[in-house]
């Protein structure tokens, strides 16, 4: 079957790929475009490690058709840092030991980013709701919640 072209903005840059019609966005990002930040965990929409932003809204890349992203703005963790300067969320994760194996971390950072863009001063309960779609096996979630609350306390959090 012939591949289809798809073009979108990825972390601020115009990118294009040839994809199978029913290919999911996660496959396209990792294998087509070399962005390995979003991970493959379950393929079912349960684990959240493939969470990315499409036009600012959180989506699961494993459940998103690549061709449905034509003309959209996609953001992954790869675009969070500004050169050597970490995004405040990334710095907060580091300072609060919010990553152990790191596999859930790209999804957690992206979910947190989406949360803080909508709600810059979340309560603990709102943070828990915001990461409700992301599973972590290592940390027990408390360091992640603390990191997000700490980043929310920082004035710089709306940078990206």
């Amino acid at each position, binding site marked *: *079957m012939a591949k289809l072209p798809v073009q979108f903005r990825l972390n601020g840059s115009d990118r294009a790929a040839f994809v199978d019609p029913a290919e999911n966005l996660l496959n396209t990002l990792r294998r087509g475009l070399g962005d390995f930040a979003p991970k493959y965990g379950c393929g079912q*929409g349960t684990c959240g490690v493939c969470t990315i932003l499409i036009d600012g809204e*959180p989506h699961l890349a494993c459940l*998103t058709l690549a061709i449905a992203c034509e003309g959209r703005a996609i953001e992954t963790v790869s675009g969070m840092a500004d050169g050597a300067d970490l995004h405040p969320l990334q710095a907060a994760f580091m300072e609060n030991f919010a990553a152990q194996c790191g596999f859930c971390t790209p999804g957690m950072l992206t979910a947190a980013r989406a949360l803080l863009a909508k709600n810059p001063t979340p309560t603990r309960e709102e943070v828990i709701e915001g990461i409700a779609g992301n599973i972590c096996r290592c940390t027990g979630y408390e360091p992640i919640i603390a990191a997000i609350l700490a980043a929310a306390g920082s004035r710089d959090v709306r940078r990206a």
Partner: protein
Amino acid sequence: MPVDVRTCQTMAEAASMLSGDRTATLLAGGTLVMRDVNEGRITDGTLVRVADPAFRLVSTGGGRIELGAGTTMAMVLASQELVFLHPAARAIGGPAVRSAATIGGNLFAEAPYGDFTVALLALEAQVTVQAGYGGGRTTPLEEFLAARERGRQQLVTAVSFARPQSAGALRFCKASRVRPKGISVLSIAAYLPMSGGRVAGARIAYGAMAPTAIRAKGVERALEGRMLDAATIEAARQVAGEGTRPATDAIASEWYRREVLPVHLGRMLAGEER
């Protein structure tokens, strides 16, 4: 043959494609269908997408509310006019799932999924279905669910229901093992309009207590015309399980679901949040 994708600019075109090709599957939010693609349960045929703006139209003016089948849970949560549906919408997956999951798709989610449909059933929603290029046909949700498997090559275009008496008149709870997000042990929606301090027109619906969402008509009869006091709630608890056929699955056993159903129903009717 690998899977093909066709994007239709109108709902009529999509309906025609679905009814004309038994290997065509509607792709709305993708939370069910893309899972099947990823797990190899859909390996050929065509995924049909709907780009028609009417598919996601939210009409809340007037006494009757109509929601396009492509309306997402996130769109429901963003609408203050639909605040009475927020507990049900919030019960679906996590934030990323809600960006994509649609009302129409939830109608087809098999137990123990499909919790939003439970709330729609308590509101006695009507489902508008289009087969081919003909006009839409409207069916009560209860009938639609009973015939759901036979209707997979039709396009659900919209869901409609009467505006509830008040936002508080529709109660919703979901019992799951993992909070705040988790697959249902069971879910309950209770529409309890009151008149003169008594229940007038109770509609109760369950999720994950049968192969589809079902009405709890025994409970409705036990509540009708009575004050919502301890005696009434106990009478409702006694008949809570009537008509239920819960499954045993990875989340809970049939026995467990039957045991906890009256507990959750009683708490909900008493207004106890857990």
